[in-house]
């Protein structure tokens, strides 16, 4: 029976991952106290889990609760482990796998992109920004800073295009996510 199942995390993990890995977005509600983020990150690095994106902010001030949004990739059994391991941390109140529970959660990100150039490149940058619905937050005669909020994939495309025409630097917030519909996780 176990012959078909992939063992996880053990010293006997000799089979390769194949392409059964999935990407999930987790929401983790924690007590906002010193060291709590280190605990969560340490868990991921210590047990060899992936972090594709991580954002954190206090979301309920009266209760001192923060919400950490983590995008992670792994085999389904590893993703299940991640959930349980997070849940085991003392200051963790709730762990929700939005990809499982919400089907198709809303995932948004914000990016600031600095693009420098003159002439045609400069004009093209401005046209692209307009096409993506980015706003211009700063401008000089040879540069712009654009702000784009949206789906991570859209931001990815925006940055790819800009890198052809003078992208100097980019700063991204990481992903914020909620499920659709009336139900909330907390």
């Amino acid at each position: 029976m176990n012959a078909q199942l992939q063992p996880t995390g053990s010293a006997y993990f000799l089979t390769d991952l194949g392409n059964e890995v999935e990407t999930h977005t987790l929401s983790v509600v924690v007590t906002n106290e010193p060291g709590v983020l280190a605990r969560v990150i340490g868990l991921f690095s210590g047990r060899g889990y992936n972090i594709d994106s991580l954002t954190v902010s206090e979301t309920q001030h009266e209760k001192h609760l923060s919400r950490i949004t983590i995008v992670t990739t792994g085999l389904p059994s590893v993703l299940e482990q991640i959930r349980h391991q997070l849940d085991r941390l003392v200051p963790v109140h709730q762990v929700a796998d939005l990809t499982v529970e919400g089907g198709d959660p809303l995932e948004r990100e914000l990016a600031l992109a600095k693009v420098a150039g003159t002439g045609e490149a400069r004009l093209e940058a401005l046209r692209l920004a307009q096409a993506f619905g980015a706003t211009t937050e700063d401008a000089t005669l040879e540069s712009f800073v654009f702000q784009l909020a949206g789906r991570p994939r859209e931001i990815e495309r925006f940055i790819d295009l800009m890198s052809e025409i003078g992208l100097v630097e980019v700063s991204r917030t990481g992903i914020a996510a909620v499920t659709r519909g009336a139900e909330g996780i907390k």
Partner: protein
Amino acid sequence: MTREMTGAEMVIQALKDQGVEHIFGYPGGAVLPIYDELFQQDQIEHILVRHEQGAGHAAEGYARSTGKCGVALATSGPGATNMVTPLTDAMMDSVPIVCITGQVPTHLIGSDGFQECDTVGITRPCTKYNWLVRDVNDLPRVLHEAFYIATTGRPGPVVVDIPKDVQFAVGTYEGPQNGRARTGYEGYRPQVKGDRDAIRKAMDLIATAKKPVFYTGGGVINSGTAACQLLRELVRATGFPITSTLMGLGAYPASDKQWLGMLGMHGTYEANLAMHDCDVMVNIGARFDDRITGRTDAFSPNSKKIHIDIDPSSINKVIRVDVPILGDVAHVLEEMVRLWPSVSHQVDKTALKSWWSEIDHWRSRDSLRYRPNDKVIMPQYAIQRLYELTKDRETYITTEVGQHQMWAAQFYGFEEPNRWMTSGGLGTMGYGLPAALGVQVAHRDALVIDIAGDASVQMTMQEISTAVQYELPMKIFILNNSYMGMVRQWQQLLHGNRLSHSYSEALPDFVKLAEAYGAVGIRAEKPDELDDAIREMINVKRPVIFDCVVANLANCFPMIPSGKAHNEMLLGDDVPEQEMSTAIDEEGKMLV
């Protein structure tokens, strides 16, 4: 009770309120206020060790032999870093420990102050939880919370790091039951009661099994004596075979006819084959550790698996199970024992009978057999004699790590829980001697023996001085083979018999060493002097180092080589020298 007091007083008061009678510690600048408070009271006995690692392992031995929480105290910096090994050990083996460390004053934190280290940072991954307390008014809550978290759910070690200025500061103390929630962490709610439907489903599987086996672990012992009692009831009522991990020895009596012996890498043939061939496996408080499963993709291929565990992250971590039951072993077993009469009519007695005859056939291989010798003491024989001469007393056994540890597990029969203390998960050489110290502090009149190896024992040997100081008559029984035997065995198996640095060169004269410490040294070199020497050791009411000189090159069998399945065991009598070196294939060599 609410009262104004200093942080240092709070520490002592909280320990008293938590029912602590003994603590193991070592002083230093950052804990002097706490030591000053210790000096001014006599309710709590402080045992001064010789190295903080010793305090940590002693607290572990104390905890594991009593079921209570162990307490250790250390100073900042090197005191705290010396605690890392026992904390990790306790984390791996789920031992409840509260470790209190001193820290530099709050205004110096982060300045690389003298004896400053980031204690909560360093111990974060090796504790169940830890706190740096910056405000004296948080201290009482944190201290009580520390005991609560260490001892509930899956037990584990916690650290409370207290800066020196917080120890001097005055605040309001509150007792553990003073209207406070037991923890401020809403997310911390260990599930105790098992799901009824899951338990029902498990009982139906159990009742209709044709080749069942109980596979139990340290979780049964952690759950308490009631759990062990219920386990015995259930196993006897079903008539099924039972095996256990290294950590679970003693939960079920080794003398019972349903007992198959320990399973795993050095487990018995019958236990491992029963695991491999069973159709229903009932895992109670064990965690499918890699020493148990061997190759996971060949692990018990035809069985339905039931897994009872208090830690959800242990379920489906290594092996997928069919019926997970989240809860405390004692609660779940109670329910199972209650339900058994309602399902027992389904039992297929004929199938069970032929399962037992299969098992008896495996048993007849006598997989622990070794070649007796009348000139040198065989290590297995030494454990057998030690067992025979101590089994009728209240005896507690601790071990170090190596071949001697496995021989102790194989040849010493445990009838009761909490009598066997060994470093299972971390495999810490140097554990056994200080652990024995902790056990003896908790059980002053009992016979406490550390079954040791010549290499391991040198890692924490200094604690014999503690034993002498506190008149703790513990016995260090060294199976002296002049080798790091387990390392040598692996080198023989894996590395073409090139014995790289595994010979114990320049060993001390253990008898003289004992005498230098003010303990008693005894040596046995021949099988015919062994019994008298052991009797002498038992009769001396002082700490003893027993140098038991054993066959140098004996190896520990049976053995499931790394990367192999349960039915690919090596048995002692079928491993000629040349085969030793080819027993593990290339892939297996990568594993530990």
